[in-house]
Structures are given as C-alpha cells and as structure tokens.
C-alpha cells in the first residue's frame, strides 16, 4: 500500500506581470492511500488546481510551509520528472501541444522513462497495450500517429490524458477537471477509463466543480475546499448534498469568512 500525504501545505504563486506574490493554499492537510478514490470539490479560485500542480511540482508554485510525502518521503525537492517516475501522474486541464512528436512516440518514451535501460518495452507489447486501451476509450488508432495534442478538440485532449494514465499506470493520479468540456458520452468513456484503473495498487485524487462526474466515478472520500483550505471531508453523499445546497450554503453552515469568486 502506498500513501500520499499533504501536510499543512502553504503555497504562493508569483504573478510576473504585476510582480506580486499571492498565497493560494493556506494550510492543506490530506492523506490518501492506494485503493482509494478521493474527490476534491470547491468553487472557482479556491486552490484546487494549485494543489494538484504543487503535488506534481509545477515550478511556478512555491511551497512556503508544510510538506508533501510520498510513502513517507518528502518530494518537495524532487524535479517533476522524478516525481512522475516515483508514481505520480497529473491529468491536466490544459495539456500542452507538441508539434512533430507523435502520440505513440511520446507514450513509449513516457513508459520507458520509468523502466530500466535493459528492460525497455518491446514494440509488440507496447502496441498490444495501446490497442487495448484505445478500444476501452473508444479512440481511433489514427490518434496515436497524430502529433501530441496538436489540433485535438477539448474532448480528444481529455481522452488522451486518460489514455496516458492507462498506459503509464501510475500509483497516484491527480485528475484536474477531467470532466470540463465533455459531453455526456465522453464523460462516460473517460469515467470508464479511470474506473478500469481502480484496485489495490492505484489511488486517485479527482478535482471537479460538479457532482456529475462523481455519479460515474464514485469516490470513497469527498473533500470540500474553500479559501485555500479543506473545510469539510465526508463520503460520496457529501457531493450530493453540495449539489443541492451549493458552496455558499455550506460556507454559511460552517460559518466561514470566504469570498466566492462567482458569487453575485
């Protein structure tokens, strides 16, 4: 069993244009284990994406206090690629487009990056795994010969993130708004992909605005984040309550002094 622990995490982001730093995370605590699916819900601008990017190691986010531990080992000083090879994966909201590098070539490079030099995946084994996962995600084979995310629609990019998840098989997957911009059919396909990973050797932290995704990927734990902190943790039914009452309702119940970005 693997664990991912976030302890009293404070994170600042520097805005280069205004040359100002702003504290986004103000003491986040979270512990998850493999075998569990956690969901983080919360209003816009509350730090959900910051949390996932900081765990992955995006260089624009600066940890000012607290720690992130993978199996008890601090990963704060590790570069992004090392964190990935240790088992972390971030399904991104806005994946980069890279011209001239095919999807297939990229996937092989990513899979081989975590294998020893004398144990690189064979072309046959790679293609077999690729075909299986393409079928699962209802993706066309031609997607693999296209350049990485280049000219992909929003939905295609999301599917491609999940394809990478299935090929790379990380220990912990952080999935940042993997449902945004998806129609209901695509949402089902993406959910099917994530659900296929469920098991004792996989844990996931799913970030979403909406409860809808959680109908398809039923979480074990739901966290609500507001104002840079986790303010409430519960079971799958917490998401349903939120859907009914809204974030403002929960805030008022908890007596929190937090501005909601989208509040009129």
């Amino acid at each position: 069993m693997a664990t991912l622990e976030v302890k009293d995490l404070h994170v600042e982001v520097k805005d280069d244009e205004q040359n100002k730093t702003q504290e986004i995370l103000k003491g986040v605590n979270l512990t998850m284990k493999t075998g569990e699916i956690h969901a983080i819900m919360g209003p816009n601008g509350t730090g959900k994406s910051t949390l996932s990017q900081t765990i992955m190691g995006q260089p624009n986010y600066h940890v000012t206090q607290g720690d992130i531990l993978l199996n008890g080992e601090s990963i704060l000083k590790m570069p992004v690629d090392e964190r990935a090879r240790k088992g972390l994966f971030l399904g991104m909201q806005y994946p980069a487009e890279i011209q001239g590098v095919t999807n297939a070539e990229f996937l092989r490079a990513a899979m081989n990056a975590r294998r020893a030099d004398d144990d690189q995946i064979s072309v046959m084994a790679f293609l077999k795994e690729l075909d299986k996962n393409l079928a699962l995600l209802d993706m066309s084979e031609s997607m693999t010969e296209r350049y990485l995310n280049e000219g992909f629609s929003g939905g295609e990019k999301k599917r491609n993130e999940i394809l990478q998840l299935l090929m790379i098989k990380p220990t912990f997957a952080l999935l940042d708004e993997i449902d945004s911009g998806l129609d209901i059919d695509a949402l089902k396909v993406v959910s099917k992909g994530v659900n296929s990973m469920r098991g004792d050797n996989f844990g996931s932290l799913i970030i979403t605005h909406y409860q809808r995704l959680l109908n398809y990927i039923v979480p074990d734990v739901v966290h609500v984040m507001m104002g840079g902190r986790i303010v409430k943790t519960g079971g799958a039914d917490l998401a349903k309550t939120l859907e009914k009452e809204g974030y403002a309702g929960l805030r008022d119940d908890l007596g929190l002094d937090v501005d909601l970005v989208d509040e009129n």
Partner: protein
Amino acid sequence: MEAVHDYTALKPELAAAANDHGEPKWVVDRRLAAIDDLADAALPEVNRFDIHRWPLTPAEPLAFSPSATDLAADVPVAADHVQIVQVGQTTVAVNLPADLADQGVILTDIFTAFREHPELTQPAFMTDIIKSNEDRLTSFHTAFLNAGVFLYVPQGVVIDAPIEIHLVQDSTQDDRPLVSHVLVIAGTDSHFAVTQHLTTQGDHANLASCVVEVRAQANSEVHFSSFDELGANTTTYLNRRANISRDATVDWAIGLMNDGDTFGDFDSELIGENSKSDAKVITLTGGRQRVGVNTRVTNRGKKSTGNILQRGVIMEKSTLIFNGIGHIIHGAAGANAEQENRVLMMSSKAHGDANPILLIDENDVLAGHAASVGQVDAKQMYYLMSRGITEPQAKRLVIRGFLSAVIQAIPAKDVRQNLTDTIERKLENGAEVE
C-alpha cells in the same frame, strides 16, 4: 578583407581549361565575362552577418579532375529510383526510367546539358533567374563552375517519385572547391519533387559554392527539398532561387545541417499572377559555427502568395542569423506574404537573431510576420517531464517538434528519417559539450 586577387590574370588559363573541357563557346564567354565582373562586384548584403573574411572566392585556377567513385559508396543507388549521383566533378550514376526519358525528361550533368541542350540551358543558366553579375559570389560561381546537374521536365509531365540529386563534395585533398550548379526547368503543367542531398567526404578545408536555379513555367508545381550536410571544414555558399510563372508553385524545404560556416541565400520570385511559394528552412548550429540565411520572397504577380518559415536551434558558441525578406512590388495587387522566423537559444554563449524585413510597395496586400528568439517552451517541458521523461530527452523532443515543419515537408521517408537522425545526433553532441 579577403586578399584581393588579380582574377583577370587567370582569364587565359581559365579559357584554355574550359575549352579543353569541351565547353561550347557561349559557356566560355559567360565565364570570361563573369571574371571581368568579379573584379568590381560587391559581396551580397546579409543583414547583421559578416562574410567579408570568409574564403568564398578563392583564386584557384579552374581545373577538372576526376574523383574516386567509391566516395559515393554510402549513397543508396537503386535502379527503380530517379536519381543522379555526383562525387566532386564526377558523375557516378544516373537513373532515369525509360518511360520518363521517352516523355522527354532530361536528367544529366550540366556540362553535357550545355553541349546537347543549349536551347534549354543557354537562356537560363545564370542569366534569367540568378544573374551572373549580381554580386561577387554569383560572378565567382559562373566563372569557376566545375560540376552540376540539369533537370528538365517537359510540359504536362507528372512524376510521382521524387527525383534525387546526391552531391558528394570531394574534400580528400586541398584546393578542390566544389562549384556546383543545379538547373531545373519545369515545363508548363508539369508536376514533380526534387530531393537534394549534399555531403562531404574528407576533411580538407574547401569551398562549396552550390547554386540551384528553378524555372517554374505556368501552372507547374515543383517541391524542392534539400538536406545539406556539408562537412565542418567546408565553407559553404548556397544560392537557391526560383522564378515562378502564372499559377505555378515552388515549395522549398531546406534542412540546413552543415557542420561548417554557411551563408544561404534563398529566393522565390513570384512573377506570374496567382503564383505561389512556401519556403521552409530549418537549421541547427553548434561549436563555433556561423550560419547566416537570407530567405526572400518577392511578390510581383497579382494575387501571388508567398510564405516563409524559418526555425533554428543554436547551441554552444555558434551564431545564427535568419533574415526573412518579404518584398511586395507595386502592382502586385491581392498579394499575400506571411513570414515566421524563430530561433531557440540552447546556450548563453550562442548568438542568434531573427529579423523580418518587409518591403511593401503596394496597398492591396495581406502581409504578416512573426519573429522570436527564445528558450525552450517551459509549458511543453513541464508536460513531458510530468510523464517521467527526463529533462534532456524532453528537450530533444521539444526541439525536434520545433524543427518538424521541414521534416514533414520532405517527400521521401528515408530522407525524413536521415534528417531526424542527424538532428538527434547534433543535439546529443551539443549537449555533451555544454
């Protein structure tokens, strides 16, 4: 300043060498006129790049000498390819399928073409497309020409397979300048692709003066790709120009991978109405190499369309200057000219610049440009590394992507692969040194 040579003193010797070589009188006359021009001609202008000290016009006497054909042993020769292979001044192989010869296609060495097809070569060679007296380098090229290829595709002929031109510079000895001319005439409604590959054998310091002229007649379509891999001790002058008639298209895909100092002058003259050109140039520089490129598109014809895309990666202590020159002549109403020049700096000791130069003398046009000199895209690096890919490998992938515009435009799969391999090798060499 390069030493001032008394070229005129070379005239009798040059005329004798050309006559002994069996050249027609018009060729010899053109050489002698070029010698006269050479005395006063200036070097071509290259914005922010200095070639004055380069040995681009050595005063070696014109000499014809064969090269060992086994220097072309690496060149894949196959009977089912359309190809010509030359080592230095020696033609090693010509493969022209009978059906193409029957349709009137000519693929031969340039001196044979001067003798046997003067009606085609005399009006074109260094006269109409590039003028011999334009500058010191063009004059030198005409005067000291010692190798080359002539390709003629007659009216209406469509060739599916790319026509391969392999030129191997013989630098196994000193004083062996390669002054090579490729002349391409595309007849009306013809349609074909040329892939050129330049390499060097031997490591003696020599000049390569390699010029390509393309005349694209009405409604023809020519895709010209060149993979340039001349050696580290070769100082290279490249001049490639197309005159493009009504409704004709000439596309350039140039992978400039020379290891030595290189000046490139690439030009599309959009003469006819609705003519088109797409010029793509990529390069990767390392060591103390200096590379300067002028890529020019001149819109003369109404509704003509010209695009320039230049991308370069500079490593170590090298220098790269990309000048993109878009010139729209008065009267070229409805012309369209776009250009993009981008340079990636991989080393703080490298020097690079991307200069768009727009000269627009007509109001009714669409013109745009983009230029940048920068580092590897941080967002792309983060994405690749977030999948476990190491920083050096991620960098190579991003750079290959950055340079992919030209790789994709090359019609032959094996050439695409070779170019990709060369890029990888150069990137690895550059990374090791830093």
